[in-house]
């Protein structure tokens, strides 16, 4: 549990992490519902904050690799699988706790306008895993730290934009909407809209399944990183 415990400690040591984990998401819960938006704006944007919060936390793994720490950890009696999984689980715990607080605040602020909060929490939890696995895979594929940061932050921003975190999916053209379906962001928004509209449960389950498939695929790529 050493790796898990210290990953948790380190997650809260960086001021930027604190802002993205504790500050902005909780502030987003207070953003009002707006005309044209199916889901309260703050909840839709919360998806982007999850995406970037996961990226910021997993940045420490890329930094550790660049600083040579993996060489020292690689010489210790731990497998790289254990190192990556304990780190991943620690960060997942942070995001899931954040999801619970966010949904709890949402219920307080928006009351009954926020439908099916429990299922909303499940959707956020699934997307949290997907967000972490995307950053893990990015860090594994791009070994140069600066390249990894630039490429990942650009990719995440594009995904957040076409996935519908910053505007309602309805305003996207049919072609863009089809492209958006290739991002996990679209499926979180789809899940939230399905819940908010009281849509069929099958659509919600489909969204969850797609997000988890994305998570598994990226995790398989991310866990192949060599420690040293």
């Amino acid at each position: 549990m050493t790796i898990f415990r210290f990953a948790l400690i380190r997650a809260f040591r960086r001021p930027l992490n604190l802002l993205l984990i504790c500050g902005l998401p909780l502030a987003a819960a207070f953003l009002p519902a707006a005309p044209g938006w199916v889901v309260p704006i703050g909840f839709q944007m919360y998806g982007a904050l999850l995406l970037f919060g996961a990226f910021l936390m997993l940045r420490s793994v890329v930094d550790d690799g660049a600083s040579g720490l993996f060489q020292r950890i690689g010489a210790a009696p731990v497998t790289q699988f254990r190192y990556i999984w304990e780190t991943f689980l620690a960060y997942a715990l942070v995001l899931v706790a954040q999801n619970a607080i966010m949904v709890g605040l949402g219920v307080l602020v928006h009351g009954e306008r926020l439908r099916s909060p429990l299922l909303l929490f499940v959707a956020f939890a699934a997307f949290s895993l997907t967000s972490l696995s995307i950053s893990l895979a990015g860090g594994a594929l791009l070994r140069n730290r600066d390249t990894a940061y630039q490429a990942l932050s650009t990719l995440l921003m594009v995904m957040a934009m076409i996935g519908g975190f910053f505007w309602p999916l309805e305003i996207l053209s049919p072609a863009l909407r089809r492209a958006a379906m290739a991002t996990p962001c679209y499926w979180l928004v789809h899940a939230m809209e399905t819940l908010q509209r009281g849509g069929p449960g099958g659509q919600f389950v489909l969204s969850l399944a797609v997000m988890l498939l994305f998570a598994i695929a990226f995790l398989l790529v991310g866990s192949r990183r060599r420690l040293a």
Partner: protein
Amino acid sequence: MVNDVVKRYDSLLALDHVDFEIAQGEILGLLGPNGAGKTTAIRALAGLLPVDSGSIELFGEAQVPGAMGLRRRLGLVTQEITVFEDLSARENLEFFGGLYGLKGAELRRRIAETLDFVCLAEHADARPKKYSGGMKRRLNIACALTHRPEFLIMDEPTVGIDPQSRNHILESVKSLRDRGTTILYTSHYMEEVQAIATRVVIMDQGHAIAQGTVDELVERIQYEERVRLELGSPTEELVARIRALPGVKQVEREGASLTVVSEAGSANLDRILQAAQGGGGVRSVQADKPSLEDVFLTLTGKSLRDGGES
């Protein structure tokens, strides 16, 4: 024991049939210019790298990547400072001690001992970003000591620090050896290796080109002995008398000082001093002996500190 080890990176032969042994409880100095294969050898010894052929055996077990039992008995001090900047010194030791399975009171005791050992106990709760270069280097070493390794690999542990911190680290290394730790020590500072190593292995272009004690290595390249004398009033007659001594190859006079070059092993210092008595008295004597630096230069044709051709 490193046994006929070969390691290639594509077309580059990083280790070319390398053999050397490390006796339990000794400090083995590993020297070589940049690109000699030291880092590859260290990574293979630490189990971070598979070798293409040959074998590495530590404590009677084959060292291969993933050999967890051996990893518990090893410590690695990396050349770069590889500590967590966002954790305090104590937390860093707790993390690395935890990786080696230490916990609870035993872990706390080992952390306190290690912090004392590297003189960081007073700064244990500060983060490394507030440390001086020397303190960071000491923490870098401490992270490899908490689990009390039987075999410690130290890759350039004193790079870029002040002489006081360097001396402290060298004393600590000797103290670890006295406790029975076997140490593999690489450094660009030849005088460090000369001061602490029991034996030395010199590597160049993937080969272990020479190994032995410092004295043995010096003997290998010592073709002549050089004595410098400062005399009261040397005369030409005195110079001729010294030149006639057995084994003397050359005598140079410059003012009141004489430089006498003799064949290696001629052991004629006494005779030279006796002869020099007639030169108005001997004011000073200096007998030059080749250093490890000279050995390195002779064997590799390179200067170690800049890694370039000499």
